[in-house]
């Protein structure tokens, strides 16, 4: 046996070949483990979360009710009242995690997330316009959030120009757009009726209160589409991380892949915002944590989505339980956690001399 061969083969421990008939994939066991662990964590936290509230239930009771074998009252409370909120939390968290992973990979920048690039602010502008113009019905808010997010995406792509939809330029333009939109949002808030303004402010903190299937379904549908698109473009996206020139030389249709994934990421972020408001920092932190845990380069899309779901479910649970008798909106909790994380990240990167 040639020793060089084995040494060269050994690094595939990180990416194990999987063959079924003539088909073959390469999967990283570590990434798979991270994804599964956090998917389980997300579900367990949700079950605990459903068991809490004015009518507490044990873990077992909740699971029985979810399986359709609870009595009439627990069935009603679990499946009608509390499940939609829990599912919304999971869907929004996964959408933000995945959107963040895509944005960070496309911009080749750890700060490339929808809350820093202006998409979240754009959704907020849309919501405020809908509030001022239409008084802000539930559907109006959602349509406003999606329209605002998508228009911001179009604006940023136009400003960045055809040849620069990546890297530094995207981040700089995004940060500028975010700053402008923040100003616009402040102005719109002063123009709104006081009751509408109060409702808009509540939406702006990011909350899961009173969410039902109407909010969860669009995010779930978009998630399914996004997972399919990401799976089919994943290899191309990893290749684009080598730089446009290198990726083109390897036969990747760079512009087409980037356009498709950018559209998916923008839609994910805006639909998440429509459902729960601009929940900050999940899209920023989930992909970063995923990368640290899987220790592999690339977008880490699936682990990031599972981590996002777990993070948001946990933040929502914390918001409900942390201050007895008082519920914190989930956006406040993620803001506190995420801000702390960002400071930690900046200081460790600084110590490591990378900043």
């Amino acid at each position, binding site marked *: 046996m040639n020793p*060089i*061969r084995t*040494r*060269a*083969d*050994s*690094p*595939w421990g*990180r*990416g194990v*070949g*999987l063959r079924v008939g*003539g*088909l*073959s*994939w*390469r999967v990283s066991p570590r990434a798979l483990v991270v994804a599964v662990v956090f998917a389980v964590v997300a579900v367990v936290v949700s079950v605990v979360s459903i068991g809490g509230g004015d009518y507490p239930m044990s873990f077992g009771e909740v699971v029985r009710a979810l399986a359709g074998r609870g009595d009439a009252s627990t069935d009603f409370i679990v499946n009608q009242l509390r499940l939609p909120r829990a599912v919304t939390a999971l869907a929004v968290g996964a959408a933000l995690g995945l959107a963040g992973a895509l944005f960070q990979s496309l911009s*080749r920048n750890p700060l490339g997330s929808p809350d820093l690039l202006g998409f979240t602010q754009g959704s907020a502008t849309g919501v405020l316009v809908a509030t001022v113009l239409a008084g802000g019905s539930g559907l109006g808010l959602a349509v406003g959030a999606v329209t605002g997010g998508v228009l911001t995406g179009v604006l940023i792509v136009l400003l960045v120009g055809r040849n620069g939809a990546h890297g530094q330029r995207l981040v700089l333009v995004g940060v500028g757009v975010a700053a402008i939109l923040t100003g616009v949002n402040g102005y719109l808030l002063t123009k709104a009726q006081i009751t509408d303004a109060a409702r808009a402010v509540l939406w702006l903190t990011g909350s899961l209160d009173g969410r039902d299937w109407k909010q969860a379904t669009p995010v779930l549908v978009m998630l399914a589409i996004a997972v399919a698109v990401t799976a*089919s473009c994943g*290899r*191309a996206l*990893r*290749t684009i*991380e*080598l*730089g446009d*020139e*290198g990726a*083109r*030389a*390897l*036969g*990747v*249709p760079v512009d087409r892949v980037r356009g498709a994934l950018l559209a998916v990421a923008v839609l994910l972020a805006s639909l998440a915002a429509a459902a729960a408001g601009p929940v900050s920092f999940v899209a920023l932190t989930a992909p970063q944590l995923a*990368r640290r845990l899987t*220790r*592999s*380069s*690339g977008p880490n899309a699936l682990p990031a989505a599972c981590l996002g779901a777990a993070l948001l479910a946990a933040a929502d649970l914390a918001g409900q339980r942390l201050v007895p008798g008082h519920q914190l909106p989930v956006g406040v909790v993620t803001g506190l956690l995420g801000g702390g994380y960002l400071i930690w990240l900046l200081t460790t990167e600084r110590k490591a001399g990378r900043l």
Partner: protein
Amino acid sequence: MTAPASRLTASGLTLAYDRRVITRDLDVAVPDRSFTVVVGPNACGKSTLLRALARVLRPVAGTVMLDGERISSWPARKLARTLGLLPQSSVAPEGITVSDLVARGRYPHQGILRQWTREDARVVAESMRATGVEELASRGVDELSGGQRQRVWIAMALAQQTSLLLLDEPTTFLDIAHQIEVLDLCARLHAEGRTVVAVLHDLNQAARYATHLIAMRDGRIVAEGPPAEVVTAERVAEVFGLRCRVIDDPETGTPLVVPAAPSIPAASDVVKVT
């Protein structure tokens, strides 16, 4: 004398970035199974030409032909299995390992349902061995020296398994021994039947290894042909603005450029050193 056949040719090429024209109406043919070396001063358009030949940059005017077809009509992945380009500067994704990076060269050979085969593993291992980076396989690319990194990128281009290989400054960052090692590797690839095009800055190395030399200046091809014909003292003065003498390389008999001794003024004429 008939010109040697060429799979890769360009005619009437005008290349520009936005509106800044770099070359105008350029004709070039890469002789089959040649080791073609492109030389010229910084910013003369060598990398730009390579980009156009690899279809990474779309010409403003003119066409590039590969195997008798316009390169623009080639399907992207088929092209990437035929012609490889190693750009002058590439970014390695954060935290990627050497073997992972080399494996990305397999992209054009894979599909959604065929992502990783034994053949892929074999080619990746072989490419790492050919460039002497198999020892580094599980190391992070971020933690390598410039020369090690350069060899990893070459391994990635090799893993693409193309019969035409365009290398933009493959010897940059390398110490003299590794420069020769990479050039020997290119010569071996050439001897095995590939067509290799490389941009080099060292004229003596270019003259020693090239079977066909292209000298560029200001976006134009000033001279091309066998190194013995192209490398003359007048040519070097014309292309690089350097006074020199050209003698025979004592090892190979190829042209050897020896820069003229500078006429250094006496130190006392320049500054008073106290």
